C-alpha cells in the first residue's frame, strides 16, 4: 500500500463510504467483477441546447429585437458507456465535441434531454446530498476557492460543508499537501497565487472529502510542465490508492497517456471510440514509424525504398511503414543501410487523434 493509502486506510470512513462500500464491495475486491458493477452508467444520453443566432452588425441587432433566430446545438447526441470502479478513463474530442457537457450531466449540473444516467447508485440530476459528497468536479481555470482568502479557509469551510471529521480532515490534508507540495501557499490569498499553485490548491479542495468519483475537466490547462507533472502524479496516486473512478478530459495527450487505461473519443456529440489507447492507435494509425540513426551518408532515394520519409537529417531519418510489414522492413534496413540504431514507435498520439477527426471532416 502506498504512502497515501497507508496514511488514511481505515481512518476515513464516512456515511457515504459505508453506503458505497456495501454497494460496490465486490468491485473493490475483485477487479475482474468490474463490468458487473459499473460506477458510471450512461445510456443514450442526449443533451441539446437552443442557442440564439445573430449575424454581426447593427441591422442584424435591430432585426433581433423583433425576430429572434435560434439554432439547435446537439452537444451530446445519444452516447452510452459504462465505467467500472477504479477505472481511469480519458475523454477525448475536439472543442465543442460534447465532453464537458457529458461531465456536467454526470455531475448533476445539467438536466439531460433523454437517456439514463447512474453515478455511484445515484441519478445525478436529483442532486442528492450524499451523491454530491461522493463526487468531485474539477474544472481547469475555474475557481471554487475563496478568491480573497488563503486556500486554507476554503479547506476548513469544505470540512464543515462535507461534514468531514476533524481527525480525518487533518490526515487527508496532510497527505494532500505533501503530494501536491502546496504547503508554502496555504497562507496566501488565492488571488496572489500563480495558476499552477492555485490549480493544485483547487485539486486539494476538491478531494479533501475523499470523493469516489472524480470528474476532471482539463485539470492541467495552462500549467507549466512541472505543475502538470505534479497534478498527474497526484491524480494517479489518488485513483490508485482509493480505487477512485476518474473521468478525465484533457487537450494534453500526456495527461491521457499517463493516467488513462481506456479512452472515449467523442465528436459532434457522438461516441466514436471506446477502448484502450493502444487499440485506438492500432485501429486509426495503420502505419508505424521507424527512426534510424546512420553511420554514413545515405541517398534520399535509398531511404524512400523502405517507406515514406517524414523527417530527415544528415545521419538520421524517420520513415513511416505499414504496420503489418514493420518487422520485415526494419530487418531489410539493417542489412541494406549503414545503421547504428533503429527504433520503432507508433506515431505521436496527437497525430492519431488529429487524423481521426480530420478523416471525419474530410
Amino acid at each position, binding site marked *: 500500500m502506498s504512502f497515501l493509502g497507508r496514511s488514511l486506510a481505515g481512518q476515513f470512513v464516512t456515511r457515504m463510504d459505508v453506503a458505497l462500500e456495501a454497494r460496490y464491495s465486490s468491485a473493490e475486491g475483485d477487479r475482474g467483477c468490474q463490468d458487473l458493477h459499473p460506477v458510471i452508467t450512461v445510456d443514450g444520453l442526449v443533451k441539446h*441546447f437552443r442557442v440564439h443566432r445573430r449575424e454581426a452588425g447593427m441591422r442584424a441587432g435591430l432585426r433581433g429585437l423583433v425576430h429572434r433566430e435560434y439554432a439547435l446545438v446537439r452537444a451530446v447526441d445519444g452516447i452510452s458507456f459504462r465505467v467500472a470502479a477504479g477505472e481511469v478513463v480519458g475523454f477525448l474530442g475536439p472543442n465543442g465535441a460534447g465532453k*464537458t457537457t457529458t461531465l*456536467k450531466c454526470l*455531475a*448533476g*449540473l*445539467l*438536466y439531460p434531454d433523454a437517456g439514463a444516467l447512474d453515478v455511484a447508485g445515484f441519478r445525478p*440530476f436529483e*442532486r442528492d*446530498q*450524499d451523491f*454530491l*459528497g461522493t*463526487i*468531485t*468536479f474539477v*474544472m481547469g*481555470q*475555474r*475557481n*471554487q476557492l*475563496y478568491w*480573497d*482568502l488563503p486556500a486554507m*479557509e*476554503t479547506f*476548513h*469551510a469544505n*470540512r*464543515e*460543508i*462535507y*461534514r468531514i471529521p476533524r481527525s480525518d480532515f487533518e490526515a487527508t490534508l496532510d497527505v494532500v499537501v505533501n503530494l501536491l507540495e502546496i504547503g508554502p501557499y496555504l497562507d496566501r*490569498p488565492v488571488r496572489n497565487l500563480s495558476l499552477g499553485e492555485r490549480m493544485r490548491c483547487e485539486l486539494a479542495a476538491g478531494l479533501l472529502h475523499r470523493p469516489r468519483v472524480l470528474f476532471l*475537466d482539463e485539470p492541467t490547462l495552462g500549467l507549466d510542465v512541472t505543475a502538470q507533472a505534479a497534478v498527474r502524479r497526484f491524480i494517479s496516486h489518488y485513483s490508485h490508492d482509493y480505487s477512485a473512478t476518474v473521468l478525465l478530459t484533457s487537450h494534453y495527450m500526456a495527461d491521457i497517456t499517463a493516467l488513462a487505461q481506456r479512452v472515449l473519443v467523442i465528436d459532434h456529440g457522438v461516441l466514436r471510440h471506446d477502448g484502450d489507447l493502444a487499440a485506438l492507435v492500432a485501429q486509426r494509425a495503420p502505419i508505424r514509424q521507424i527512426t534510424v540513426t546512420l553511420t554514413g551518408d545515405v541517398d534520399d532515394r535509398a531511404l524512400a525504398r523502405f517507406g515514406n520519409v517524414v523527417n530527415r537529417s544528415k545521419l538520421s531519418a524517420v520513415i513511416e511503414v505499414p504496420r503489418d510489414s514493420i518487422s520485415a522492413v526494419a530487418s531489410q534496413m539493417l542489412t541494406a543501410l549503414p545503421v547504428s540504431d533503429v527504433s520503432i514507435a507508433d506515431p505521436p498520439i496527437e497525430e492519431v487523434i488529429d487524423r481521426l477527426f480530420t478523416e471525419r471532416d474530410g
Partner: protein
Amino acid sequence: MTARSFLALIKTETAVAVEYRTRILIWVLSSVFPLLMLAVWLSVEQTSGDRLPWSRGELIGYYFAAAVVSQLTSSFLTWAWDEDMRSGALSFRLLRPMHPFFQYLAREVGFRLVMAGFLVPSLVAATFAWDDLTYSLTPARGLLVIVTVLCGFLLNVLISMTFATAAFWSTQMANLYSLWWGAGAFLSGWIAPTELLPAPVRVASYLLPFRSSMGLPLDILVGRSTAAQSTAGLLVTAFWFLVFTWAFTRLWRAGLRHYQAVSG
C-alpha cells in the same frame, strides 16, 4: 446541511467581507443617503409647522436609524447570482452538498454582520453625541425592532433569491430586480415614513412586502407603531414570506432543468 456547517460558512463569508477595507468604507459611506432625505424632511417640518404629524425628533430618529436598517436588511444577492451565473461560479455552488440558498444567505449574513459591527455602534455613539437624537426604547420594543429587522432581512434575501432563480430563464433578472428595488424605495419608507404617504399609497405600502424591511422596524423604533400595527406588520411579513417561499421552491425545481452551466 447542518446548523454547524451553515455557521462555519457564515464565518468564512464574514472573513471575505472584512478582507477589503476600502469596500467597507464605501459601503459605510453609502449609508448617508437616508440622511439626505432627513435634510429634506426637516425643511418641510420647519415650513409646515403643526400640520406635519411627525416631530423633528421623530424624523431625526427615523432617518438616522434608516441609515443603519437599510444596510442591514438589503440584499444584493440577485446581482451576485447574475455574476456567478455568467462566470461559472454558480456551478461550484451547485456541486456542494448544501443548497445554494443557504450559501448565498451565509454570504449576505457575513456582509451584514460586518456592516452591523460598524453602523450599530456608530448609531449608539450618535445618540450620546447629539441631544436631538434619542430613542425611548423599552426592552420589549427593542426586542421587537431586532425581530422585525431580522425578518425584513430574511424576506429580502428570499425575494432576491426568487428573482435570481428566475434568471435560469432570462438573463435580465438583475435589471428586473432593480425595478422592484426602485418601487420598494418609495413604498418601504425610504423616501418618506409610510405614515406620511397619501392614503391609497400608504395602504399599498402596508400590504406589500417592501415596508417589512424598512418602515416597520423604524416605525416601531421611533414609537409610531402600536402593538396592533406592529402585529399586523409582522403578519404581512409572514404572508409574503410564505408567498415567496412557495414561488422560490417552484422556480428552483423548474429552473434547475433550464440551467446551462455556461462558462466552463
